[in-house]
């Protein structure tokens, strides 16, 4: 196990997961000197009755919920955050609870920035210090969550706000909030989270702490994905949600990998969801890394993906390759429910080229000149990366 000469690791989020965890929120808020939270959510969570469950969980706590702001939309804009801030001040709230996917968490984090600094202008925060004192902030992941809720990032109007302090204080993962979703809607956030975690622990600068979080996230996702998609048992759905929440922490502690950069750029250019692009690119980024980079892919990846027995049975030198093949198995195994090649998404070639070009220079050192394009090409027709060792 190689330890880098210098690394930093920080996870501000406390994970509270499992049965009746929502009922802890009143106690937790009081232990952080807060009594009146503002709930930030979107219409879908309200319609599914998630807000009602939280209100019931508040029963007998004697506390008051400042207000339930359900104006968050898929694209979070500054206007929504300013409305929420006005509501926050009007009700005299002192803490924030976000229920829902990525966009609710982003709006909540930006709101936290605004109300803690008592300002109306989000744009002044271009570089954020790491020691701001923000209001207590609790995130409640739902089935729409894809990991970025528990990360250090918030994206408002396409602008990125990043700071360690933006991570939520507590992530409450309660099975009652994980409503059943269609097969594709269950698979995509999970595969995206796995892509983030796999990328974090196969980076050159991987450190043992982030690795242990990444392994936990990958193992939870791989073990529970099949069960969650077919049967959808409470345990498997809860396991998946935990895996996804942990991947947000892992992503915040790792440098951005080429896979997530390509997925982000591709999603912006083609209108496909980030989750889908990340899922399709994951195996091919790994395959390229296995064959065409000095460091190749470390053997330890096979352990969380395929489980301890397959790991120990594999020969030392084979583990890197088997790890990548196991990832292929998992992602390609989902082709009944989601498209697994860029070809199925009909992405024109010139968009592949311009995406590769946009991402190329920041990763050229590690992945070589044509690296990004080779990844996209092999992801296009779904074959293994040509050239390299095997």
């Amino acid at each position, binding site marked *: 196990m190689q330890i880098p000469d210098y690394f930093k690791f920080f996870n501000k989020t406390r994970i509270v997961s499992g049965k009746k965890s929502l009922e802890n929120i009143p106690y937790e808020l009081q232990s952080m000197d807060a009594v009146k939270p503002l709930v930030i959510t979107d219409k879908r969570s309200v319609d599914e009755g998630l807000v009602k469950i939280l209100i019931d969980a508040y029963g007998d706590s004697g506390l008051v919920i400042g207000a339930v702001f359900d104006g968050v939309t898929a694209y979070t804009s500054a206007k929504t955050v300013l409305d929420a801030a006005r509501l926050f001040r009007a009700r005299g709230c002192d803490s924030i609870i976000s229920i829902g996917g990525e966009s609710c968490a982003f709006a909540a984090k930006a709101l936290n920035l605004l109300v803690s600094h008592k300002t109306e202008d989000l744009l002044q925060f271009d570089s954020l210090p790491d020691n701001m004192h923000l209001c207590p902030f609790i995130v409640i992941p739902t089935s729409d969550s894809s990991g970025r809720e528990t990360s250090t990032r918030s994206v408002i109007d396409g602008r990125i706000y990043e700071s360690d302090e933006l991570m939520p204080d507590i992530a409450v993962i309660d099975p009652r909030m994980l409503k059943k979703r269609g097969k594709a809607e269950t698979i995509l956030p999970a595969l995206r989270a796995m892509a983030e975690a796999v990328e974090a622990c196969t980076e050159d600068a991987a450190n043992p702490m982030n690795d242990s979080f990444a392994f936990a996230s990958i193992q939870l996702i791989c073990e529970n994905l099949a069960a969650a998609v077919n049967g959808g048992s409470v345990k498997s759905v809860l396991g998946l949600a935990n895996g996804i929440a942990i991947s947000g922490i892992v992503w915040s502690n790792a440098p951005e990998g080429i896979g997530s950069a390509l997925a982000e750029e591709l999603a912006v250019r083609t209108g496909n969801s980030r989750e889908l692009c990340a899922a399709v690119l994951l195996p091919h980024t790994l395959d390229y890394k296995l064959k065409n980079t000095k460091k190749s892919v470390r053997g330890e990846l096979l352990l969380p993906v395929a489980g301890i027995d397959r790991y120990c049975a594999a020969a030392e030198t084979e583990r890197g390759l088997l790890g990548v093949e196991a990832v292929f198995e998992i992602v390609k195994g989902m082709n009944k429910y989601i498209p697994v090649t860029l070809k199925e998404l*009909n*992405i024109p070639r010139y968009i592949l080229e311009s995406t590769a070009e946009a991402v190329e220079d920041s990763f050229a050192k590690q992945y070589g000149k044509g690296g990004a394009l080779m990844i996209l090409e092999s992801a296009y027709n779904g074959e293994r990366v040509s050239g390299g060792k095997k």
Partner: protein
Amino acid sequence: MQEITGTSNRILEVNLTKKSFSVYEVPKEDLKLYLGGKGLALKMLYDRMEPGIDPLGEDNMIAIHTGVLLGTGAPCSGRFAAVTKSPLTGIMTSCSCGGAFGMALKTSGWDGLIVKGKSNTPVYLYVDSKGVEFRDAKKLWGMDTQKTQEEISKDSGGALAIGPAGENLVLYANVASGHRFLGRGGMGAVMGSKNLKAISAKGKEFKILPVNQKKFEKAKKKATDYINGNDISAGSYRNFGTNANVNLNNAGGLLPVRNFTGGTHGEAHKISGEEMAEKFKTSYSTCKPCTILCGHKGNINGQMRQIPEYETVGLMGSNLEIFDPVKISDFNEICTLMGMDTITAGGTIAWAMEATERGLFKSDLKFGSADGVCEVLKDIAHMKGIGKDLAMGSRYCSKKYGGEDFAIQVKGLEMAAYDPRGAFGQGLSYAVANRGACHLSATAFGLEVYLGLMDAYSYRSKASMVKYQEDIYSAINSLQTCVFTVFPYELETLLMKYSPRPVLKFMMNLMAGVAMRFVDVSLWPELWSAVIGNRLGMTAFLRVGARVQVLERVMNCAEGISRKDDTLPDRLLNEFRKCDSKERAIPLEKMLNRYYFVRGFDKNGIPKERTVRRLKIKKRMAV
């Protein structure tokens, strides 16, 4: 003067790389299935072009087809169609234009023109009955559209030309022919990327005679009577042009105000057709030949200028909260000379104004003030300063600077000047239009707001209404005649003219799919079969429309389009117009599911095998 009876069916295939051309005979099968105009042009590209090519690359092609009716003197038949892959949206875009080039090309003995490849030096084409000459256009390069046309029209009946915007590859550059344009989707940029400055045609070498002269005369007379009898085509459009819509939209809450936040505005009357007609003492300046006569020109502070169309007045006027017609006319002139689509330019500048207001974008543009807009338009045309970004359209800018929720566009094409929240059917039409947010794919607001035949705020039977209108519009564009003929030809027929309104309303609201079948659309096919000779029934005519629509969807799906793109910007789904106190939201998902079912698409918006086969579209691309 030789004669052509019916059509010559001869298409010029021009290869700019090799500077060569060849003649392509349109097979009878395609003529029967796609009629001509937009339909045939699309089919020709479908056969020749691979999906996934770069719109500004060498392999993109432009297909122009004059259609059957052009040159026969049929009412409002002075238009031709052009199709290419749009650099702005990355999918197919088809436009129609009433400029003189169409007549010139048809009377030079050609039915259409396909331009391929890329010339390494600026060039312009000269077409006559013998073929094509490749003439050097170095000295034309840099001229505006009107000057270019003057230069090369010494020996030609009509010309197509691009302005500086096209040369600098502004993604929404258009192509001018006289004062009319192939407007939307950036066809000018495609010509610019091929270093093709203009195409001119000698014209007046052939006379077009219909096969069945007697039947043609009868149909032509009936059509002219309908047009002159209908109060829209003969009344509002003839006197006040398309700007007659301003007061109607203002009343119906459809007018785009301040980047689609408001639906009406007190000062809207200042830019209405009625006031402009009287203020500028307008006279006709239309496509030739035309019976409706909706194009106008007027004396705008000393200069005889084309009166801006409604879309320009809406998007560069009320959408920017500018209500001074002279200023709007200035913007229109710059866009005409530079060769830019006023709808996209207006939509992008409106985004820029709101983004500046919110601090996301640096510019000195402000709602309500016209200063700075002219300079910005010129900067866009020459890719200077902020123009460099704004030249890419509001989707690109909003992805780069943020503010995607108020970039009012669908699939990259900026929205026309009708706010869909005032007519839910129009919302569905914008979402599913093959070109992007275009109002000419299906004018649902006409039925919902102008004629009031359908409840504007309900989703019921809007899907089948939109599908029907899309089919009829595509069919009309494949004859190639003006879409404004929809009002006279449909409303003046016996059944529609004399049946009581409440019955019509009841039928349209509840059983639009069934009611539509009773509408008498026989006039168009009558004209067409009179000219060509072989029969074309009403249902066959509508099936051509459906075939063209589904073919265009198949080609778009091969570029990656699916349900995720059939949507509306966040503002139109989640925010409400200031004038709408009841805060009614567009039920897009419901209408979309119904539309896919009616259209024969699967849940993800991809045309099903069965649909493609039943419409006899040759399977060529893996979709």
